[in-house]
């Protein structure tokens, strides 16, 4: 079981299954809150991001919350494959973030539109930041566990 790169999706122990339910609950609550807030902003004529990026950032915020909780609570439905996912997300996020910052600093693209809404580039910077945050939380938990493991594993 431990040597497989991608374990069966349901290969979680009883504690992890309970906590996974809590994570999903938090994600759904956040999703509803953000959708409701977005609806009220639209009703007031406020556009906070260009085009479809409003919806994408809402989705990414929920994904980030859930995956951060997964990392903190050490819920890894796909075993070692989760490490690959976190690293890939972090790498893509870093690329998006750096490219966005370069584009804005060089004046190629605006950070915000005339009405104050986040431009496409601004939204990509935010998305990149969220993706990098996932990798940072994952790595931070690994470092914390490594330091604790020698203390906990006394025989």
């Amino acid at each position, binding site marked *: 079981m431990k040597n497989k790169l991608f374990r069966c999706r349901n290969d979680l*122990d*009883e*504690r*992890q299954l309970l906590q996974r339910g809590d994570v999903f609950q938090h994600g759904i609550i956040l999703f509803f809150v953000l959708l409701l807030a977005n609806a009220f902003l639209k009703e007031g004529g406020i556009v906070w991001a260009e085009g479809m990026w409003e919806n994408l950032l809402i989705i990414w915020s929920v994904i980030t919350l859930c995956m951060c909780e997964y990392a903190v609570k*050490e819920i890894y439905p796909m075993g070692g494959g989760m490490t690959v996912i976190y690293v890939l997300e972090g790498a893509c996020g870093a690329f998006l973030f750096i490219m966005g910052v370069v584009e804005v600093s060089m004046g190629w693209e605006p950070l915000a539109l005339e009405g104050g809404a986040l431009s496409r580039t601004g939204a990509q910077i935010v998305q990149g930041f969220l993706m990098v945050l996932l990798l940072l939380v994952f790595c931070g938990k690994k470092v914390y566990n490594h330091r604790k*493991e020698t203390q906990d*594993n*006394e*025989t």
Partner: protein
Amino acid sequence: MGKNLKLKAARAAAGLTQQGLADAVGVTRQTIVAIEKGDYNPTVKLCILICQSLGKTLDELFWPEAQE
């Protein structure tokens, strides 16, 4: 819920690390940590598996200490 020191002592007496006990009963090390710290109440099924792995009874490992 307080710490389960009896479990920790039994695991140490059996010469098992937390990872070793976790592997023996089919859970993660973090679950064993949570049980020993008192942060998680295992199901009866898991309690039985732990007892079988350590050669102890349910009373010896999981019955609460009498409060004075």
